[in-house]
């Protein structure tokens, strides 16, 4: 296919304009004092999308198993918070949006540098060893923050409150766009090649060091920018916001969405962030209820796995059986919940909000049992795919594009 500059420019220009307008619209919709909660949710969702997609670049695309992504997030957040509280307090007060943009930039630079420092020596390590080192770096960063007076020790730092759904959603979109562009180019294939087989990629002339360090620096920089924006959204940073659990949560988003799939990672990030957030204000329940639900889930999972293993009928029959199993699970959950609460031992009240993390954990385990490649596998969203789904014939095949 011949490259057509006019078409390229047209598509690019429209995409950029649409993206900016979308972010502006989102910002507009989220304005107003009565929407502060939704604004906060929206901002955090955008931040988590950035974090997950940037970790996907390191983990999913380049295959470097990093489980300490919160470290770079934290470095960005503290950089933003410290600068806003000291050197740039004037700017932050007078031109908040400009400052927020700069803060994201500084956060990205600081985290990117950290990524470089971590990435270079870590190149000697592979697989699990690399994972442990990144985990360790995450812990070390948190512990340092906890013990530095200038960083507010265990309590944390407060900083200027500047909310901008616009900048946050723009960052998320830029992050997604950069990863998508990378994958569309021959450069991206080199990254994927490193994930697939390091020895072979080196033999094909791919510079392993450069690819890995680039992935680390780029991924960390986006996490740092997200951190700086987070600091100003919440107006406060403290060490628990960047604990190992946060790293695990981001990692979960990547794996759940389908390692390497940008689309899947994005969707998983939003869903996994919203589930626990929405469960914060659950009412008190009797202990029997969650136990009953747990039994229902176990029954459904066992049935679904049996179908996966030993049913070889048509797709529609399979779907029917799957739905049936889920139905049985739900019925069992209801019945068991009703039965169990009649037992005196299971009548004590439990705060429903305590079930935030268990639900997340159960989602993880169940998904790994039923669909370990993640929801999207290696697949990506594409327009030709939508067209196929709608029954139209795709105008050009993927190869030609």
């Amino acid at each position, binding site marked *: 296919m011949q490259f057509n500059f006019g078409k390229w420019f047209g598509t690019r220009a429209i995409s950029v304009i649409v993206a900016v307008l979308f972010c502006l619209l989102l910002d507009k919709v989220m304005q107003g004092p009565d929407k502060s909660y939704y604004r906060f949710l929206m901002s955090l969702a955008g931040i988590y999308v950035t974090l997950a997609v940037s970790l996907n670049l390191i983990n999913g695309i380049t295959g470097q198993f990093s489980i300490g992504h919160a470290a770079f997030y934290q470095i960005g957040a503290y950089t933003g918070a410290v600068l806003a509280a000291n050197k740039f307090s004037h700017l932050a007060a007078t031109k908040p949006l400009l400052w927020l943009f700069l803060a994201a930039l500084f956060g990205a630079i600081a985290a990117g540098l950290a990524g470089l420092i971590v990435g270079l020596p870590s190149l000697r390590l592979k697989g699990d060893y690399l994972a442990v080192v990144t985990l360790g770096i995450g812990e070390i960063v948190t512990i340092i923050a906890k013990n530095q007076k200038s960083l507010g020790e265990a309590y944390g730092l407060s900083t200027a409150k500047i909310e901008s759904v616009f900048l946050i959603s723009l960052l998320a979109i830029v992050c997604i766009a950069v990863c998508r562009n990378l994958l569309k180019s021959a450069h991206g294939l080199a990254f994927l*090649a490193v994930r697939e087989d390091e020895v072979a990629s080196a033999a*094909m002339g791919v510079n392993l060091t450069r690819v890995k360090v680039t992935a680390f620096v780029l991924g960390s920089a986006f996490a740092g920018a997200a951190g700086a924006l987070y600091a100003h959204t919440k107006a406060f940073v403290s060490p628990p916001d960047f604990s190992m659990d946060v790293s695990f949560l981001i990692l979960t988003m990547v794996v759940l969405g389908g390692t390497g799939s940008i689309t899947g990672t994005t969707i998983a990030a939003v869903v996994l962030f919203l589930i626990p957030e929405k469960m914060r204000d659950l009412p008190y329940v009797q202990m029997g209820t969650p136990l009953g639900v747990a039994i229902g889930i176990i029954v459904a999972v066992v049935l679904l796995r049996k179908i996966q293993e030993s049913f070889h009928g048509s797709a529609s029959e399979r779907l029917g059986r799957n739905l049936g199993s889920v139905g049985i699970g739900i019925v069992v959950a209801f019945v068991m919940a009703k039965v169990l609460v009649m037992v005196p031992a299971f009548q004590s009240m439990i705060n429903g909000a305590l079930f935030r993390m268990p639900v997340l954990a159960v989602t993880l385990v169940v998904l790994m049992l039923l669909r370990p490649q993640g929801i999207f596998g290696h697949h990506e969203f594409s327009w030709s795919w939508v067209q196929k789904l709608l029954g139209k014939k795709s105008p050009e095949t993927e190869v030609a594009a």
Partner: protein
Amino acid sequence: MSLLKLEQATIKFGGLVAVNSVSFELEKGDLFGLIGPNGAGKTTCFNIITGVYAPTSGKINFDGRDITGTPSNKIAQQGICRTFQNIRLFHSLSSLENVVVGGFLRHKTVLGSALCYLPSAIKETDELKAKAMELLELVDLADVANTRSRDLPYGKQRRLEIARALATQPKLLLLDEPAAGMNPQEKMELLQMVKKIRDVLGVTVLLIEHDMKFVMNLCERILVLDHGEEIAQGPPAEIRSNPKVIAAYLGEAV
């Protein structure tokens, strides 16, 4: 002047001397065979040449330059590329993408333009894909260009590895047991293909192979290794009657 020259190349793993003071020279346009019993150090020789391991002592010269101890990717850039004994394709990439990765080392655009999806990067990617397609046609895999390489049958995977290696535009191609696991028909086709690679593309070929018929028919010169040491070197006719070689391959009709 010789294209590749090994001088007293030696490598030791702990106490084991895997390759002991091996020397040979390849002229431009050679079809050179490397044979020997299992564990003779053939693949290790390849690994020394392509920079997977640095030799303990000795020198390797390629195209007038000393490449001893140069990292793999730099050696590929200078024009040596290889295939692997145990196939090492990028399994979840398509055939075409595998070959594009091979061609990537000649890229000119910077990463930034790829990240921003600039015309230069798109054009280059398109060019690489077009070239890759040509190579796939050469190895007769054009019909499976979009198939994931792990889903290809064994013989096709071997040919895809050759196409991928050729995409790096090598001056010297190292083939590690290219005919392993192929049936006689496939072997014949492979033989023709290797000849074509040398004659049409002008690539010098060094290959390891266990199938004696294949090697004797294809190669113009052969080096025999045993226990890491050279035991014979010469044209196929000489090798066939060399008593040392017969001893090493005792019982096998050479």
